């Protein structure tokens, strides 16, 4: 029933089945950790880090400027959204790098297509079936870094031929100990299920999520991600979605809530990951940005350039990295959006390569085939 090919290509769990009690995740897992957070719905980079020194920004967003009255200044140009207090602290500590005017190579304005490209790393929507992060797992082979999506189904970014799994707290009632105790006997003659079951028990123990019933609470999500990555037997790559950034209407209140949630998540994550913070990279990305101008419903519409965040103990942070294009009408992309001056693909491949000690050009070719951008250097100390 399990042919040899499945054995070779199959899940890490299969291999783990024969390895004894504490080897469900291979012991050779490297020390480096990666957390990828995808803000789905297109985050307004100009709200995340506001270019207060740009007169065109002040003019276009005049009625929202009060938001940034007491906001932490990142440098002479940019101020961080005031809800991002913890992110600001990490920035001050040199552990957060703000990247601005960045976008993938996608230049239309459909969430659906843009997220597909963000996740597959392809150049045309739906051209590729596997995800960039799954291919990255493939590059780490030999060090066997297990990848987990904190989600009930595997996101496209992690789908593909390399092993990746999911974990999500559940609203299902906890199974009784009496039942759990009987399963090793039930699976005694079945190496695959026995291995999976052992891994499941171990993951449940690492997650220790009995007090959570979903990823809805930001603090829980941050804590869970940290537990998964911090544990020596845990995952080395974790991916999680942050939904709800499509701010067409009443953006001020909506983004205040979203940024607060993100910041709570980061704070909980930072606390939990503390022992291995220096080995940890957090990458925060979104599919595209939003219009410079405020629309008729106190929101912004689908745009192009946005911002990204790199956080972690080894990140060369405490700075804003941007080739700022300016926001005057003639400087905008198609007369409406922040013009992207940096490639998100180059940023991602540069950051991942440097964090995991891989050849950046090779990472670029594998994750983003067909791109000519040079991976960005100097992101990680």
């Amino acid at each position, binding site marked *: 029933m399990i042919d040899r090919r499945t054995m070779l290509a199959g899940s890490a769990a299969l291999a783990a089945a024969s390895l004894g009690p504490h080897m469900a995740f291979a012991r050779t897992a490297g020390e480096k950790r990666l957390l990828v957070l995808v803000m789905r719905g297109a985050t307004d980079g100009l709200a995340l880090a506001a270019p207060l020194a740009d007169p065109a920004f002040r003019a276009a967003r005049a009625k929202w400027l009060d938001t940034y009255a007491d906001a932490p200044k990142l440098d002479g140009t940019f101020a961080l959204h005031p809800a991002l207090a913890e992110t600001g602290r990490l920035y001050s500590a040199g552990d957060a790098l703000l990247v601005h005017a960045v976008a993938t190579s996608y230049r239309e304005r*459909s969430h659906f297509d843009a997220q597909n490209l963000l996740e597959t790393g392809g150049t045309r929507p739906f051209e590729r079936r596997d995800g960039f992060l799954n291919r990255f797992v493939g590059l780490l082979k030999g060090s066997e870094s297990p990848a987990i999506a904190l989600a*009930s189904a595997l996101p496209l970014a992690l789908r593909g031929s390399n092993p990746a799994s999911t974990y999500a707290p*559940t609203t299902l009632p*906890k199974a009784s100990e009496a039942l759990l105790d009987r399963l090793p006997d039930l*699976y*005694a003659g079945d190496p695959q299920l026995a291995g999976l079951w052992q891994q499941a*028990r171990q*993951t449940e123990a690492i997650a220790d999520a009995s007090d959570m019933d979903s990823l809805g609470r930001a603090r829980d999500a941050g804590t869970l991600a940290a537990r998964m990555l911090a544990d020596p037997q845990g995952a080395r790559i974790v991916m999680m979605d942050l939904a709800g950034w499509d701010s067409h209407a009443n953006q001020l209140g909506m983004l205040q809530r979203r940024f607060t949630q993100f910041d709570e998540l980061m704070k909980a994550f930072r606390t939990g990951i503390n022992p291995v913070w220096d080995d940890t990279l957090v990458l925060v990305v979104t599919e595209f940005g939003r219009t410079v101008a405020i629309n008729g419903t106190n929101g912004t519409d689908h745009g192009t350039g946005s911002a990204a965040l790199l956080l972690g103990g080894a990140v060369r942070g405490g700075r804003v990295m941007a080739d700022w294009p300016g926001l005057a009408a003639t400087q905008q992309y198609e007369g409406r959006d922040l013009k992207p001056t940096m490639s998100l693909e180059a940023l991602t491949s540069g950051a991942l390569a440097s964090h995991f000690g891989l050849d950046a050009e090779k990472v670029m070719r594998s994750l983003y085939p067909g791109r000519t951008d040079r991976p960005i250097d100097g992101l990680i100390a």
Partner: protein
Amino acid sequence: MTPESIALNRFGLGYRRGDALPQDPRGWLKRQIAEYVPSPKALAGRSVNGEEVARVIADTAEFRAMRNAAREDADNPEAAAMMSKERQQDVRRDLVADIALRGRLALESDTPFIERMVHFWSNHFAVSTDKAQIPSLVGPYEFGAIRPHVTGYFGDLLRAASLHPAMLAYLDQWQSQGPNSRAAKMRERRGRPERGLNENLGREILELNTLGVDGGYTQEDVKELARALTGWTMQGLPAAARAMPQSGGAAFFDYIHEPGMRTVMGRSYRDTGAGQALDILDDLAVHPSTARFVATKLARHFAGDTPPESLVERLAKAFTDSGGHLPKVYEALIDAPETWVEQPVKFRQPWEWAVGLLRAGGEMKLADRQFAIMLRELGQQAWRPGSPAGWDDREASWAGANALYRRVEAAERVADLLRLEDVRELAEAMFPGSLSDTTRQSVRWAESNEMGFALLLVSPEMMRR
């Protein structure tokens, strides 16, 4: 596995509590082809025809117009948000009802092999509810466009599925415009930006629905098919009010159609308006690459992740010889020795496992919402594969640790709800002649019937087919 257990579990959707066991497994499966009812009683209250689809689309368009008007109302800034929220709740409730209906149809089906084929084809022509509009169209899509054609010709299924408004919306076909269409020329005269061709549907039809990625087509074939498809849109859209209604709620709008001859896979097609795309689809449906692609997917579903080449050839031949008559392909599947190997060949996907659980219990018991939530927690929300490629049909995608743990939790929950008293006999009936001593003893020694049923539901026999 015995032939009886294979017929029940590998071909069917699992034994249904109270049913007699099939005496003649192959005959039982073949009879289902003729006995299958596309619109059984459970569907009676659910309108799924083209008129209903057009109504849903018009209703959505009307809602959007009202909400946009509300957004302009400066005195009441929360009104539009409230409208959207209420709308979302309504759509969600209807979707949950459709998901539960899908479960009920599978539970109640007397032709579970063909019911499995409904799920198979729905996944072959996948749409996904993570895209706007799909939650309210996917029920009518599967119930109204897939179900009636699963025992007919593949070509008819292809037409019904790939030109249904659910698919036209999912792959943005309705926004595609011929660069030389009258509409494009009008836009140009008025100085409005070009809208242009959208290749999504054209590409997915070739790659995912017919020829397959290695089926021998080129990017130019994709473009030509996309050009032929321009004009296909849906009824109920204000922008397509003058379009000609087509079946299933679709419409054809000549105004945005790209004029001219098209060449796809070396054949030329005259511009007959709506008929041009239909002519191409009809040829694609019987193309040898399509036969092979469909045969490979079917073989993978019934003979394992890496199906024997002999089975693929057998099925492709049945497909080609019959012009894509699906009953002939099903018969070939049933007659093939490769689909009757004793060892289980597939790890059950969460949907299959959940349906198997319903049938083993013999009744729904779960509320609509509980059923939908259970599927989500098991990792396979119905109609939400997240990609036009549909759910992957390989073991590595499903045999996961977290997935197994969630099954254990769900099994105990359902066992507690059902409180069955005949679990030992049920175990023998579910896997006739195939129950392992380990499972039999686990069930027998369980401290309660509920525990015994939960163990049965997560036993190795139940995880695979």
